[in-house]
């Protein structure tokens, strides 16, 4: 079960008779949905904030669509307040519209692509809301509105499903509040930056209070090295077990090990030493230069503010050392300052040239 990709069948959905015959008809191409992690997290957050009397909450999905409408990417979402009783459902449409406007101001490329609900069941109310979102004018017409359900029952797996809809009904009025939900394939895409964010967040998943401090670079390096060491240990244990005939050998693993070990490079040790020395020198040089620059700028700022008193210098309490020096040259006043500034400028220039030369 784990790891089986689901298979999808695309049904070209039947369309309701178009209200205006001259307009382009609705799109019936197959749709694949890509979900961004931040939208998913936002939905989960909303689900955990729902009002106490509601079982499920809904919201609007924003994203981008490809040219022909076959690929829909969901990148943002926001919650829409709604109330649901046994007989009727109310969605705050005004809120929907105004929030959409606000979001479009900040990100004009992200358009309305559908809506979500935080429980997995589909009922009449879902159909009503789906029709609302798929309508002409304010909805996603001519493209189908994507409906995303995320199961958020405590204690059960979080399952996400995506659907598009087709009208179904015996008469036109019945069709207005019923829907045939067609499941469409979806996947959650993580780009590189999101992956690192996800890893950071996942670091907290095994802890009691579900939180952790941000880690510095060195700590992350340490963690990566520890992980590799642990993996190497597991593999070497396995290999020695196989050699002692305590475990079943596996061709796949043998293949993998063979491929990996052949990646070890064959290099000339003198080249390695030379490269290593060069790189170490580069790194140490830049570090030294940046610290020197920092000290110099600090010093020049302090000198300037140290003893700029035209009258009896009593403000030198905090900067006694520089103050003494500054007072001695106070007579030269402007000239001395200019000179020092000039000198600072020149040595800054020299530092810069040196930096540039080393860079080359």
């Amino acid at each position, binding site marked *: 079960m784990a790891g089986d990709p689901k298979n999808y069948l695309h049904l070209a959905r039947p369309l309701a008779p178009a209200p205006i015959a001259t307009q382009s008809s609705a799109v019936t191409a197959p749709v694949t949905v890509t979900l961004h992690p*931040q939208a998913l997290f936002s939905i989960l957050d909303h689900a955990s*904030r729902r009002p106490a009397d509601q079982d499920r909450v809904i919201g609007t999905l924003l994203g981008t669509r490809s040219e022909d409408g076959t690929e829909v990417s969901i990148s943002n979402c926001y919650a829409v307040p709604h109330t649901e009783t046994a007989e009727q459902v109310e969605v705050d449409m005004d809120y929907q519209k105004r929030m959409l406007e606000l979001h479009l101001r900040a990100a004009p490329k992200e358009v309305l692509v559908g809506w979500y609900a935080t429980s997995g069941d589909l009922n009449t109310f879902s159909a009503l809301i789906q029709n609302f979102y798929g309508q002409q004018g304010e909805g996603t017409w001519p493209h189908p509105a994507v409906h995303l359900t995320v199961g958020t029952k405590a204690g059960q797996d979080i399952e996400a499903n995506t659907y598009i809809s087709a009208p179904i009904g015996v008469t036109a009025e019945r069709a207005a509040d019923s829907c045939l939900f067609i499941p469409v394939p979806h996947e959650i895409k993580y780009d590189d930056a999101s992956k690192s964010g996800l890893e950071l967040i996942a670091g907290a998943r095994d802890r009691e209070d579900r939180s952790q401090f941000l880690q510095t670079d*060195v700590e992350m390096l340490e963690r990566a090295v520890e992980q590799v060491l642990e993996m190497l240990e597991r593999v070497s244990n396995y290999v020695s077990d196989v050699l002692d005939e305590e475990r079943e050998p596996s061709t796949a693993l043998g293949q993998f090990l063979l491929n990996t070990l052949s990646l070890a490079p064959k290099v000339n040790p003198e080249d390695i030493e030379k490269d290593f020395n060069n790189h170490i020198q580069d790194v140490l040089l830049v570090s030294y230069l940046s610290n020197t620059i920092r000290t110099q700028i600090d010093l020049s700022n302090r000198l300037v503010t140290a003893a700029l008193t035209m009258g009896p210098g009593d403000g030198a309490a905090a900067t006694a050392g520089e103050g003494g020096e500054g007072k001695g040259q106070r007579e030269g006043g402007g000239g001395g*300052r200019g000179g020092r500034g000039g000198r600072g400028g020149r040595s800054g220039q020299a530092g810069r040239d040196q930096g540039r030369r080393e860079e080359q």
Partner: protein
Amino acid sequence: MAAIAPAVADAPIREVQLEALVVMRIIKHSTTAFPTPATGCLVGMDVGAQLQITNCFPFPAAVPEAGSAAANNNPADPYHHADQAALALAAPRAKSNASYAAEMLKFLKEVNVDAQGVGWYMSCSMGNFVSQAFVENQAFYQRATDERTVALVFDVGRSSQGSVHVKAYRLSASFMAALKENKFSAESIQKSNLRYQDILLEIPLRIHNSHLLTTLLHTLPTPPPKAPLDFPAALSELHANPALAANPLAPNLDALDLSIDPFLEKSTDLMLESIEAHITEQNNASYYQRSLAREQAKIKTWQEKRKGENALRAQQKLAPLAEDEWQKLFKLPVEPSRLEAMLVGRQVEQYARQVDGFNAVVTGKMFGVRGNLVLERELA
């Protein structure tokens, strides 16, 4: 809540807690807006000494106001240049966005999201965030009635190598006091003893997940298997299985990549820019000094002349002329503000710290690689 007297001593903010959702949203916004800086507003709640940030939304770029710069809050802002980066950076304090933020907060309140603005965020590249715009933005937020706000800075450049670099900053109290007077002359800095290290306070950050999120993380990419797994028959089975081929939670070993030169190049480039800014500031300061000295010399000669004239007139028994007319005749040059110089110092310190951190990590990796490769030769 609005009627709390300012005399109530709130605990200073000691820690910032960030929800996972906020992290992902900031990452997404910053990486899509790269290379222009991305800015947005943070909402959350402050709980004693901890500031909790639970959601965020991006700001639209500030609308440049047509016509006079005097209509803006800060005439030094380049609103009239349609510079993208400047517009984006000016967004958090732009008048056009105040109503945007207020509306968003109102709507978010209706769906039970914490509706208290607790700060703003911005993205930067390789640590180049210390600028007048940054300081102005944070000052704007810290001057508001609700003073407990932070600035989150997300470093897009450094986060590309498998780590997330985000920091929280506040302006220190001494710096806020100096900003209020908006006087950054040499004497005022001397008196207040303000150094560039004192401008920003860094606050530790922690990430927090909700229960639902933790459930999701445990089931990514597939629910945990109920029975021990068998070995796959061949490697291609592993490749073909989409859940395994693209596992987002597989150990991310990008941190072990050894890439030295690009980082060093970018750092040195940014350092050079800072040095140039520093030189400009110094030239301004020395120019001011020289012109001040010139004016004062002129005043002195004029005063001597006056004294001489008065002595003459006293001899001739005429009324002496006024001695302090020089204040009306000579205009002393205005001292340039030293704020930019201090910010440059702080920025350079930021770069230096980054290089040091990078140094530590990269040296370790290099020794590791060398030990690995050189040892092989000794064995063989």
